[in-house]
């Protein structure tokens, strides 16, 4: 049931309800699912980093090669070397969690900085930054990553560095656009007239009060992108290397046994990738609709 409280005023309706009560139920479901996935990922990450696993993920057991799901001691079965799938899935999160966070925080930090510089100062600086961003944007990302791998070594942190840097233009243009939109309303000018320091205007009035939701949304979508990048590169053999488990290289090594009817060694990590990325995307999408009100307008 939608409730509106009537107040005197002609500029839009005003409702006192908290935003989760105003939101569409579909969006709430999106966000709920997304939060569930995020919690699962974080919990699994913590479990993995404290080694609280059902079994040792590196423990090779040749008696239990390709055991089907449900085998005693191995809930999701084992892979071709008899290693426990569940433990390996949990440890696989280590492969992308921190690097992914690094990538998005880099993208958000530099993107926000450049976006503010371009949007707030404008004019020549804006032109310069926009040219630079277009330049960065015009490099194909995968080629850049392969270049870095070839030049240094196939390390996930190097890859995520590139992912983060190539995400900077998107964030920068987002923030720039937002600030240019806000500048049309003259509250920034009013703030200056009120003597609010520039740093407060930028950090509090612009970024915190007007851009935080876009940044959160961008962060969730960026994380999904980083996971996809990590898993696909690991699948191709450029990312995390065996025997360290990653969802990507698990799919790759399991795929050999798929045609023998042993589907679980590849399907389990593939589904994990699917549901996780879906979760992050739906979280971003739902938040976008709720916080930015896209569905209402």
């Amino acid at each position, binding site marked *: 049931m939608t409730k509106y409280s009537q107040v005197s005023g002609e*500029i839009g309706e005003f409702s006192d309800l908290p935003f989760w009560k105003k939101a569409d139920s579909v969006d709430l479901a999106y966000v709920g699912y997304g939060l569930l996935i995020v919690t699962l990922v974080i919990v699994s990450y913590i479990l993995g980093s404290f080694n609280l696993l059902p079994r040792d993920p590196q423990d090779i057991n040749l008696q239990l090669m390709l055991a089907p799901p449900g085998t005693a001691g191995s809930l999701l079965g084992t892979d071709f070397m008899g290693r426990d799938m569940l433990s390996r899935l949990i440890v696989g999160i280590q492969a992308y969690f921190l690097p992914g966070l690094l990538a998005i925080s880099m993208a958000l930090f530099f993107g926000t900085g450049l976006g503010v510089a371009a949007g707030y100062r404008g004019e020549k600086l804006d032109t310069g930054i926009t040219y630079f961003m277009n330049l960065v944007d015009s490099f194909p990302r995968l080629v850049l990553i392969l270049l870095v791998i070839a030049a240094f070594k196939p390390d996930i942190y190097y890859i995520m560095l590139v992912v983060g840097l190539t995400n900077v233009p998107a964030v920068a243009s987002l923030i720039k656009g937002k600030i240019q939109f806000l500048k049309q*309303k003259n509250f920034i000018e009013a703030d200056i007239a009120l*003597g609010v320091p520039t740093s407060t205007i930028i950090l509090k009035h612009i970024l915190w009060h*007007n851009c935080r939701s876009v940044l959160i949304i961008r962060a969730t979508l960026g994380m999904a992108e980083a996971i996809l990048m990590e898993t696909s590169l690991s699948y191709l053999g450029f990312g995390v290397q065996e025997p360290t488990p990653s969802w990507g290289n698990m799919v790759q090594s399991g795929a050999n046994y798929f045609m023998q009817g042993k589907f679980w060694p590849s399907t389990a990590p593939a589904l994990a990738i699917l549901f996780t990325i879906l979760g992050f995307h739906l979280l971003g999408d739902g938040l976008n609709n709720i916080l930015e009100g896209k569905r209402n307008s």
Partner: protein
Amino acid sequence: MTAVPILKIEDLRTYFHSRSKQAFIRSVDGVSLEVMKGETLGVVGESGSGKSVTALSVLGLIGAGPGVISGKIGLKSDRIQKNLLEGLEDFVKLTTRDGKIMEVSKDVLGWERNAERVMNKVRGKEIAMTFQNPASSLNPYMPVGKQITEAIRLHTSTKTEQEAKERALSWLHRVKIDSPRLRFDHYPYGLSGGMCQRIMIAMALASEPSLLITDEPTTGLDATIQSKIVDLLGELKSELGITTMLISHDISIISQLSDSVAVMYGGTVFEYGPTKEVLSKRGNSKHPYTSALLASIPSAQNITEKRYLQAIEGDVLDTINIPEGCRFYSRCSRVMEKFRERCAGHEPDLRETGSGHKVRCWLYFD
């Protein structure tokens, strides 16, 4: 009342450069004004006469690129005595030919930094301003109460957030917002234009400035709300004795609220003096422009007698090509043959015709 000027603008010039026309838009072209302590100065004029640009120049809000190029703005309050355009000459080089400014070269960054330094203690604290469009002058994603609290925390010596909040609430009460506690947490989009204007006024006054500049406080509001805002401004003036510079194109508001009036046209002041003299129909010396403005106000009498409104012939002055002589020459109905040459050829000065009453017109020069 002993008249002590708080703000003294002398020969302010704010030009913008039109890149496409390769010419200066002389928005403010030699404005001199004084705002006396405890008084309300009304600045009236049609669109494009430079009222708002004058106000924005006072607060240093005109972007540095092209912008304020010369003049003096003296601020003399209890706490601060300063020329707000201090050091301007160091950053702006003017090339003049025959007394006309031909070229301006400006050290934009240097001037901006200098202006920041000078304005730092002035904005909000000494001079506060409310803007034309109240609804968009508030941060759309911030509860209005918080915005007022912020102004209080910035400029007054309130120690705690709670104390600031109490004061913000008392200001909301003072500007007659009903149920202030409820409105405190509302966002601007949930409030009407009149309420936003009240919030803006509360925010401007909350920092206890020496001078309040209200730029078109009633535009965009319907007539009943307009009159309420005017009443509010009048009450605040008598209660708090605030010094105000009131900018409006609405003569009736100016005549109700202000003690003295400056009539602006084409970037200069045409007439300046006590409201009673300038805006009364019987005033003995009056600029033709002011008379024309007064005649163009619709009155009940006009309507019953089915008379047309008296519009001023012609268009607003093109501030790019300002003519040699009087700016109002082409539209003036009182150009007489014996003055024609003088009116068309030379610009008159702002000359005193009575006590404190100044007019810029050749009619009163003999």
